[in-house]
């Protein structure tokens, strides 16, 4: 942590960045911090409560963040995948940002929890993480981590749903989506949802009905999920941002499994790896096509 503060202080003092986006202690656990003065660098912290994906603040629609000057961002491995996604999709150039990577030994499910990494409290995405030491960075801080005890509970739930009939799954999702109030927090929290005007906000033509009723909710969540297929970096921010507790992670995880199985694609922190939707192979499977 000292290492991180010293580095941030140096970057701000020498003027190579305008803002360091990191984490600080807040009244309800750890929260994102925007440090613009080198004397404030001592506020920066990093521990397993730092669940937020700060790459979200790099998306081009964040005009307020842009006004703070060139950013240095504290990224975990999973967050670095989001930065790679933005680079891959030309939303960012590598020179626009300084990446301070932290070696990460897993995070909690929620930033307000006490640090206590157990199989029950660790975030689902930490199971099988291959970027505990990020590969995309300018500076790397922290000690070599050990993997936390973790299992991805989502996969068991997906298998359970798939064992049922389409009617069972329909009933399950209708019950979950009935709570959606269409606040679009899932979209706002997502680092990969960066369209200047979202199709869900457009009214002429209005493809997706915007008030919270079952028909519009289903259209929105189908669209959100398909737009994330092969692009989702599995940071879990959509589900964490959802005030209604809708298990969006199940949809994202399901589609990640589909693109892995069909196209051999895994979320990557290498910007040169092409996204599976938007690229193709002439021998892609087509067993479902007459």
């Amino acid at each position, binding site marked *: 942590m000292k290492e991180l503060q010293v580095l941030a202080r140096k970057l701000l003092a020498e003027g190579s960045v305008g803002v360091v986006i990191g984490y600080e202690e807040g009244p309800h656990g750890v929260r994102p911090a925007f440090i613009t003065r080198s004397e404030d660098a001592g506020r920066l912290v990093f521990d397993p409560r730092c669940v937020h994906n700060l790459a979200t603040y790099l998306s081009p629609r964040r005009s307020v963040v842009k006004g703070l000057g060139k950013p240095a961002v504290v990224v975990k491995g999973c967050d670095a995948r989001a930065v790679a996604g933005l680079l891959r999709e030309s939303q960012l150039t590598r020179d626009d940002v300084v990446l301070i990577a932290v070696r990460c030994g897993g995070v909690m499910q929620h930033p307000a929890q006490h640090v206590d990494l157990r199989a029950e409290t660790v975030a689902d995405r930490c199971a099988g993480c291959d970027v505990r030491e990020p590969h995309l960075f300018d500076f790397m801080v922290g000690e070599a981590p050990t993997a936390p005890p973790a299992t991805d509970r989502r996969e068991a739930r997906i298998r359970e749903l798939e064992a049922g009939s389409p009617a069972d799954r329909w009933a399950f999702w209708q019950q979950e989506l009935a709570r959606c109030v269409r606040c679009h927090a899932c979209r706002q929290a997502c680092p990969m949802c960066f369209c200047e005007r979202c199709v869900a906000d457009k009214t002429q033509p209005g493809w997706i009905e915007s008030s919270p009723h*079952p028909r519009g909710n289903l259209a929105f969540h189908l669209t959100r999920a398909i737009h994330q297929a092969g692009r989702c970096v599995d940071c879990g921010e959509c589900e964490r941002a959802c005030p209604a507790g809708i298990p969006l992670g199940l949809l994202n995880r399901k589609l990640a499994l589909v693109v892995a199985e069909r196209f051999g694609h895994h979320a990557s922190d290498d910007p040169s790896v092409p996204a599976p939707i938007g690229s193709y192979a002439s021998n892609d499977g087509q067993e479902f*096509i007459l």
Partner: protein
Amino acid sequence: MATAAESLTTFEPRITAFVCNWCTYTGADLAGTSRLQMAPNVRIVRLPCTGRIDPLFVIKAFERGADGVIVSGCHPADCHYTAGNYHARRRFAVFRELLDFMGIDTRRVTFSWVSASEGGKWRDVVNETVARVQELGPFEAYHQLAGRQA
């Protein structure tokens, strides 16, 4: 020939077909000019390419009362725009799995490659889809989802 009483009780599904201009639309045209007999339940929406077919079209079709959907275009390597159908193939491979995971019976959605010379294949695709959806019945689960007016 069905009697009047019978035709009132048989369910006639509404099928929306999204087809590409260069292959399937021309193939369907060929089926028509060749006077091939096929089920009259399909409404065709012509698009430049399967690559232009957004998954939202399928969602909208169900919202507006379709019981089934057909998506059809050029065979691989035949795309008028070189690769539109390859992109569509990936997109719909994933979208189909998403529909299934969210509980929409994928037997309601047919994907096919029909070239401009395959009038007979188009007839088969149409008849097969209509028969399949007829068996599944009206897509009431989707049509009865409450909308703004409810």
